[in-house]
């Protein structure tokens, strides 16, 4: 199964607001830690190494 890059969130605005709200009141370092924990939780949930590799590549393509 390839990485799904088509819309898959039922309520995108709700999710986005939840994501930002989860960081409320945190310092930059605390937010970075939260993000790392979140990535690890989601990666484990996905599990499929091919999907994870594709996600890593796609994310990296946005960087220098």
């Amino acid at each position: 199964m390839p990485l799904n890059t088509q819309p898959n969130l039922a309520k995108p605005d709700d999710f986005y607001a939840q994501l930002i709200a989860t960081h409320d009141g945190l310092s930059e370092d605390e937010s970075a830690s939260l993000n790392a924990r979140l990535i690890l939780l989601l990666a484990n949930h996905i599990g499929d190494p091919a999907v994870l590799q594709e996600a890593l590549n796609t994310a990296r393509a946005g960087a220098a």
Partner: protein
Amino acid sequence: MIQDRYQLAFKLYPYARSADQDAAQPVRHPVVIMGGGPIGVATALDLGLQGIPVVVLDDHEGIGQGSRAICFAKRCLEIADRYGAGEAMLDKGVVWNLGKVFHDDRKVFEFNLLPEDGHKFPAFINLQQPYFEKFLVDRVRQAQADGAPIELRGKNRVDSVETHDDHVVLNITTPDGPYTIEADWLIGADGASSPLRGMMGLDFDGRVFEDSFLIADIKMDNEDFPTERWFWFEPHFKSGASTLLHKQPDGVWRVDFQIGWDVDRKHELQEENVRARLDAMLPGVSYDIVWTSIYTFQCRRMKQFRHGRVIFAGDAAHQVSPFGARGANSGMQDVDNLGWKLGLVIGGKAPDALLDSYHEERAFGADENILNSTRSTDFITPKSKVSHVFRNAVLDLAEHHAFARPLVNSGRLSVPCVYDGLSLTGEDALPGGPARSRPGSPCPDAPVPDGFLLGKLGGGFTLLTLNVDAPDTLDEGGITIKRLALSDVSGRLVERYLGDAQSAVYLIRPDQHVVARWDRFDDAAVRAALRRATAKG
């Protein structure tokens, strides 16, 4: 003059004048080994027990002080047992199974090595390196008494070598002055800073890790510290960026502090400064300091382990971080791999090309060890901010969520590699056979009626038959294969060698790795597999 570079724990091979020093012409030896450490002495044992004359040259007169390597893995002990030294190590060693991982002041989780039953040796023992080496030298003395042609020459320092197509010339310094010998084969077992590698101008490239570690071996009578491996990331007592506590024999504990790259070694090694770290970690505990040392490390290997008549083994050929206990343990696997190949080539029973497979197989093993050891190091000593953030995220999650525990890497403990798909490895024609004993694997041990399987395999090629008939011996190109017949097998043997099959035939190398396996005896297939395993196919 030969100055000692370190103090000795055991003076075992004092300098004695050799007849070679008075010979009119340089004496030629079949095999000379540079380095009397564990790898050199084990190589001498392997060859000497085959009846091949071997001379070990060491620039000291015995075994250096300091616990150094302390974790010896099952496969390493099985190899030592093949040479007759494994039981002494097991008797002296500390067996451990439980590991605990801490972050700051919290226990993140614990792991159990969950030892399988039906093996002669446990997953690991802790044993100070000088004992490991002494048991090997003790075994050499015993083998010599039984006629094994092994010589250990102390205070014999090799100053230069000249390599030729069919031999090597060694120029040696002794307390009585210089002399010269020749060797058909020279084994470089002279450690991570191998002078031999330097003399031959050979590469040794890899990655430097910018961190220092302070080892303090302490002796204490304290029941509060059980026989477990305790590892702290960022400990609350602030004695290091990470800290390891691990028990050794004689009431001694290894404490290992990660102390950073830019350190003043002399300052850090002063007793009061070592004690300050220890006291913060062990408040109110009394102890004696047995040995201290600061080490740094690299992960690297030689591009080629074999250079004509010169073959490198152990740390001289490859170096890893200590995390995972992959140094001495993998060096012993080099010895195991090299001994029988060199024996067959010297005996004219296999072509010279068989020795190229030593590099192929052991460089493959070294790469696996370097990969694992590098990953452990990157986890223990994160080198960027983001790497540090992810490392701590793993530790935070591991405390409450099982999924994160396999990501915690405080050292992936040494296991032997499988020579999958390499030149000597033959066919897998055993449908339903267990993956763990597939061709290329080291044979898993298992109980047999009067002992353990590995002890029955002997020093040559073995045809292991389970529930199937076959000839007692086969001769192929001057090599004899001896059959080990097991019938009505049950329990562990079924689990480890039959799987879903009803019968099986295994061709096993002298180093106890599986060449090939079948569900029945096929004379032509066994012979073809033997030719392949000896570089004749």
